[in-house]
């Protein structure tokens, strides 16, 4: 129980950091300090935080363009993340990647990818490499339910099953692929059913309880690590914001969003922590330290230098 308390406190801080970080980035976006696309994870934090708590440092993480959370969880500093959004050379991709392309080689964060589903084979490749080397590593691949209809997803799933790759596919089903609801984009309501066609293990759950997410993903990670078998997970979640900052989200009612906020992973974690005896003062202390970290990262991003013109072609070739 004490272990769970400490673990949940850590996961709670990660979730709060992601939310405050993204709120700050939304503000900076509206001030014109961040360009391009900005896809927010707000509401979905329980998914990545719970899932990645089941991993070891040697494991690999691959995700979509909605990638801020995964980088922050893996250990990329808030400074490097915010600086990347600001397009600064101190960013985690030197200002060349932006919001959609966070990379952190040291923390085995293999990136955020902008082509829907195109990254799923990449994750299977990282798992392939771990199996080839016999190093016991596992790859975790996040994608939305919008990826479940594209060929790269189906091919990666088929090959991972055929070759018994140590990978966990996590479909972050937030019920909308951009503005299209699940009912109009998929012929099945449960994305994990896609595993049946390739004979893969599957699981499906919602992400309101971050510890439960960790426990369920841990089962799949163990299967990958010990038996070298893949799993497809459908993780039900919900984003409170639009698909990106340019999406007002008019395809949903305010009532629907308010209803979903009742199972907010951060609120749930607070309730659990209080039940474990964590005081309001302790929670307040965590929130204050997160706010200081986010304020610091925005200042750092603003004060950092732009990348030099010499970087335009510098990374064409190794």
């Amino acid at each position, binding site marked *: 129980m004490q272990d769970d308390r400490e673990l949940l406190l850590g996961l709670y801080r990660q979730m709060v950091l992601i939310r405050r970080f993204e709120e700050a980035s939304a503000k900076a976006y509206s001030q014109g300090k961040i360009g391009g696309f900005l896809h927010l994870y707000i509401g979905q934090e329980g998914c990545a935080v719970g899932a990645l708590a089941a991993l070891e440092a040697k494991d690999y993480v691959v995700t979509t363009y909605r990638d801020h959370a995964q980088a922050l969880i893996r250990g990329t500093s808030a400074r490097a993340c915010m600086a990347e959004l600001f397009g600064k050379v101190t960013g985690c991709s030197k200002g*060349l990647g932006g919001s959609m392309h966070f990379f952190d080689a040291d923390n085995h964060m293999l990136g955020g*990818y902008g082509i829907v589903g195109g990254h799923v084979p990449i994750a299977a490749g990282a798992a392939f490499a771990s199996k080839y*080397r016999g190093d016991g590593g596992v790859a975790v691949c996040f994608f939305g339910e919008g990826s479940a209809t594209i*060929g790269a997803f189906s091919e990666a799933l088929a090959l991972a099953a055929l070759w018994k790759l140590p990978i966990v596919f996590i479909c972050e089903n937030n019920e909308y692929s951009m503005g299209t609801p699940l009912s109009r984009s998929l012929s099945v309501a449960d994305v994990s059913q896609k595993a049946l066609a390739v004979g893969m293990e599957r699981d499906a759950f919602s992400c309101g309880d971050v510890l439960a997410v960790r426990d369920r993903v841990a089962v799949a990670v163990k299967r990958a690590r010990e038996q070298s078998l893949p799993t497809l997970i459908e993780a039900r979640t919900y984003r409170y914001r639009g698909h990106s900052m340019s999406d007002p989200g008019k395809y949903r009612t305010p009532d629907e969003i308010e209803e979903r906020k009742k199972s907010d992973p951060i609120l749930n974690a607070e309730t659990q922590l209080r039940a474990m005896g964590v005081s309001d003062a302790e929670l307040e202390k965590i929130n204050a330290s997160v706010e200081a970290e986010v304020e610091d990262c925005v200042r750092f991003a603003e004060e950092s230098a732009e990348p030099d013109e010499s970087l335009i072609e510098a990374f064409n070739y*190794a």
Partner: protein
Amino acid sequence: MRELRYREALREAMAEEMERDERVFIMGEEVGHYQGAYKVTEGLLARFGERRVIDTPIAEEGFAGIAIGAAMVGLRPIVEFMTWNFSAVAFDQILSNAAKLRQMSGGQFKVPIVFRGPNGAAKQTASQHSHAMETFYAQIPGVKVFMPATVADAKAMMKAAIRDDNPVLIFEDERLYGLKGEVPDGDVVAEFGVSQVRREGEDVTIATWGKMLWQCLDAAEQLAKGGPSCEVIDLRSLRPMDHETVVRSVRKTGRLVVVHETWPYGGPGAELVDRVQREAFDALDAPVLRCTGRDASMAYNKKLEDLTIPDAKTVLAAVRAVMSY
């Protein structure tokens, strides 16, 4: 020196590199048990086992992406496309991932991978199986493109590609697989971006790559009896492209014909022409002409197929045209 066939030279290079580097493996359709659709990988499965010679199902985007992911974290894959035509369904993996990962990660990742297979028209393989695909790929910053025309280059370029830390695309040719040629002894590794003068001449420069080299040499030989003296340059590598060897030659001859199998619209041939006219404008005595594949999809009929891609006869006509200015 030993005499090998082109496919044997490719195979020998792969086998030698697999011996020296445990991270190298080959993956593709029919590369293992079937021994390769064109027998390039014949015998490799028996020698290296299923861990390193991997038969894939028909899923080019899937296995190309898997190989890219494996390369990102330290392996050195060789991906065979049964033909480059089929790479079109994996194009996004090469364009959006292999070519861009280093740049969009701010230099944190490298992608040491080889994509290879036969390219261009074979013998009456018709509309969908006859593309000269190098024209698409050579445009992409982040990849390198080799076009081995000779047996020695087949081996030396394959070794260079496997040892390089970037995505390298090797466009082989079904009609060259049986070609015999001399291969130097020892560990010869090709350089990227080095064109080679394959025949010296005085009156006109012919620049080409891949299998068209042999049509150009044939035309030059025919012209040697009383016609203009042709200097034939094999570009060998389209990205990086060594145009300087061509510029030097044009400074001597004053005339240039660029010959390629692929379509006339844009592409590496037009790129070469652009570079030469900028750097040797004062040396040109005639407009640069191109002798290219026709602006059409490939017909099945043999006569029409032969008329669609350049041969010695059309090269000769282009040389005569450039000499008439």
